[in-house]
């Protein structure tokens, strides 16, 4: 009997050699809208974009080091630091014990003294055990020391809902960190974003929270020669208009940019010309770009995966109400994750987060192409 059991083990183990790579394939999200672009430009995955940005910044500045769980010998839980240990050695690619509060604080202390730590959280969920240092030590030191001690640190890792991992491992921290004075919060979507923003974050003199998305790591995006240049940086606090349009503005960040672009394609077929803004930075928030777009389209849909209350959408609505109230032709639609901890069951999980159809419907509603908001508003 145990023989049989062992055979089963053997069978399953054989399968398990699929490993992390395939696991991620299984989790592959909807493909990027940018896929359709010309194949003349080079393609690069978000994973390679992050990896190359780290590599180049480490090569350029010996003060830059990477610290976190499994960043070295394991090559990163999601392989973002792949190859860096071999290249830069264990003094600059530091595997830590599982002690987020400890190594986040160590990072801040090191940054006080002029080093430029890149602290990896295996996922941003675990940053909750380090949040004291992110907020109290990193974000407030420059202020408390009257500008005498700045903290050039990057906290990075995958953020946002993942697939099938339940309540504790699946949530967006954009709203959490986006509300803290002293932090800069970046939210890359494409490979261009990932490279340009990470390089800027590492060179920045202030603490940057850098929210990646696990489900985008394996996505490929076209990258130009300029993006591939080692001097390429993107400005912090500047949004990108991913798609120009005149009928409705859709704001999104991270994985939701891809969803918004897909929704825009569908809307296009129905005669609605949507403008999609990739926020890139949620703190500082590019109010100018958002408001200019809303003044043009007169309609706004905000999209995020985080919890609705006190979220990014709420902040964007406030900025539009403050700056462009008179330009709005319809109530703003705010699409967010459901106000519940992330459920495990696949069908509930799908319901808990925005889907492309949700964006399409909301955009149509603000354009008065369908019945106004249903029971939700009652």
């Amino acid at each position, binding site marked *: 009997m145990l023989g049989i*059991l062992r055979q089963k083990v053997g069978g399953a183990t054989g*399968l398990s050699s699929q490993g992390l790579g395939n696991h991620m394939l299984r989790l592959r999200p909807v493909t990027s809208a940018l896929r359709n672009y010309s194949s003349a430009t080079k393609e690069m995955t978000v994973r390679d974009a992050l990896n190359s940005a780290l590599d180049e910044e480490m090569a350029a500045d010996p003060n830059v080091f990477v610290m976190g769980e499994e960043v070295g010998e394991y090559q990163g839980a999601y392989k973002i630091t792949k190859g860096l240990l071999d290249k830069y050695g264990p003094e600059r690619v530091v595997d830590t014990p599982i002690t987020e509060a400890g190594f986040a604080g160590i990072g801040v202390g090191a940054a006080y003294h002029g080093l430029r730590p890149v602290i990896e959280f295996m996922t941003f969920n675990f940053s909750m055990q380090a949040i004291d240092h992110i907020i109290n030590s990193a974000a407030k030191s420059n202020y408390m020391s009257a500008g005498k001690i700045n903290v050039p640190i990057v906290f990075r890792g995958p953020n946002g809902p993942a697939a099938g991992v339940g309540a504790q491992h699946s949530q967006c921290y954009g709203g959490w960190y986006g509300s803290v004075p002293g932090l800069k919060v970046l939210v890359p979507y494409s490979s261009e974003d990932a490279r340009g923003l990470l390089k800027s974050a590492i060179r920045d003199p202030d603490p940057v929270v850098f929210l990646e998305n696990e489900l985008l790591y394996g996505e490929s995006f076209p990258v130009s020669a300029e993006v591939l240049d080692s001097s390429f940086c993107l400005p912090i606090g500047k949004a990108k208009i991913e798609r120009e349009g005149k009928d409705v503005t859709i704001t999104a960040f991270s994985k939701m940019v891809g969803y918004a672009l897909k929704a825009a394609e569908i809307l296009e077929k129905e005669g609605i010309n949507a403008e999609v803004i990739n926020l890139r930075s949620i703190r500082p928030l590019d109010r100018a770009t958002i408001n200019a777009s809303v003044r043009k389209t007169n309609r706004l849909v905000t999209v995020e995966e985080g919890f609705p209350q006190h979220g990014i959408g709420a902040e964007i609505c406030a900025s539009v109400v403050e700056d462009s109230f008179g330009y709005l032709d319809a109530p703003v639609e705010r699409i967010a994750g459901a106000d519940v901890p992330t459920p495990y069951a696949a069908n509930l999980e799908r319901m808990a987060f925005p889907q492309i159809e*949700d964006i399409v419907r909301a955009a149509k509603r603000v354009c008065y192409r369908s019945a106004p908001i*249903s029971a939700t508003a009652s």
Partner: protein
Amino acid sequence: MGLARAIQPLPLPPLADSRPKPTATASSLFLGSTRTLRPSNTFARTHTRTRSISSAQRRSAVAANVSDVKLKPATNLLLTKEEALEVYEDMILGRVFEDMCAQMYYRGKMFGFVHLYNGQEAVSSGFIKLLKKEDSVVSTYRDHVHALSKGVPARAVMSELFGKTTGCCRGQGGSMHMFSSEYNVLGGFAFIGEGIPVATGAAFTSKYKREVLKEADCDHVTLAFFGDGTANNGQFFECLNMAALWKLPIIFVVENNLWAIGMSHLRATSDPEIWKKGPAFGMPGVHVDGMDVLKVREVAQEAIGRARRGEGPTLVECETYRFRGHSLADPDELRDPGDEKARYAARDPITQFKKHLIESKLANEAELKAIEKKIEEVVEEAVEFADASPAPSRSQLLENVFADPRGFGIGPDGRYRCEDPKFTEGTAQV
């Protein structure tokens, strides 16, 4: 003393001798993977050097370090036949269930991170089978088997993993979050270390009930299970302190499987002998061979007895090994398959216990076969049950967020808004 180098002052009386003798190499090493550690970087190199004290030196260090809190020698170390078969059945259940999980995961029936327990069964069965229903167990993301040992029916765990309403958490928790108020499984904590204070709080409650609420017969104990990697997290130390300070009825059970994902225990900790942290905080610390269910049970019996009698907490380090990758998504490339994996595979806790049962004539082949057959059927039935069970209805999305949900997700008619079929049309904000 062989592998159960129980380090507390107390010499544990020898168990039945008929069990397989540990190999010489295994018995002289504290950690099986010591020799395979590759000093591939400067940090590791320094650590290796400080660690390369001889085992004799190490033993004397141990003798100098033990606390003066002693575990009382257990009275009866022998298992009755019924107990032996119960433990065997539980270990088989753990193994067969987890193998089935792997199959179901690859068939897409369960998803996300699934962490299996294969190889560590002696710890769960050795400890939990000694508990009463009122006693509590707090686990991690590697929690299926702790829940099973505590009595949660296999079908309820399997169904949870399938994300179905008949699961022990109605499909809302998933693999890493097993809860059962009925069987006092208090979670399923997926973050490193966070289960430890919660377990300590459960132990605090027992003491509070006895001393403040005058429930004189409240002698419930709590077991906190967690890994070697977790023993480097601050919450562990904070709770060792409070548990000893307040003499709480808790046992900290470290399942030292030598690895935290791809991080070798020896690269992650300044002193790999975790049990030593017990005496440092004024409680007994014990190191036991976690591949030997009898030794685990012997230590567990003493520690649980101590807690029940109000004599305070114990730290038990069980040296064990996981036979699979960290999770079903882990390529598991860093652990040495030739030496380390093979050596531990040769000490499979189930095979060892089976051999002992037969050699000591506690059970015969036919009886054990019957148990194995029964468990296969239990697990098959669990899969059929889970597969046939309904997925949660959409109205479940908003339920259970609060004990008192007024003001959240409830419409003016007093009903959950999600009962309206159109409630997510256009926005997931509900």
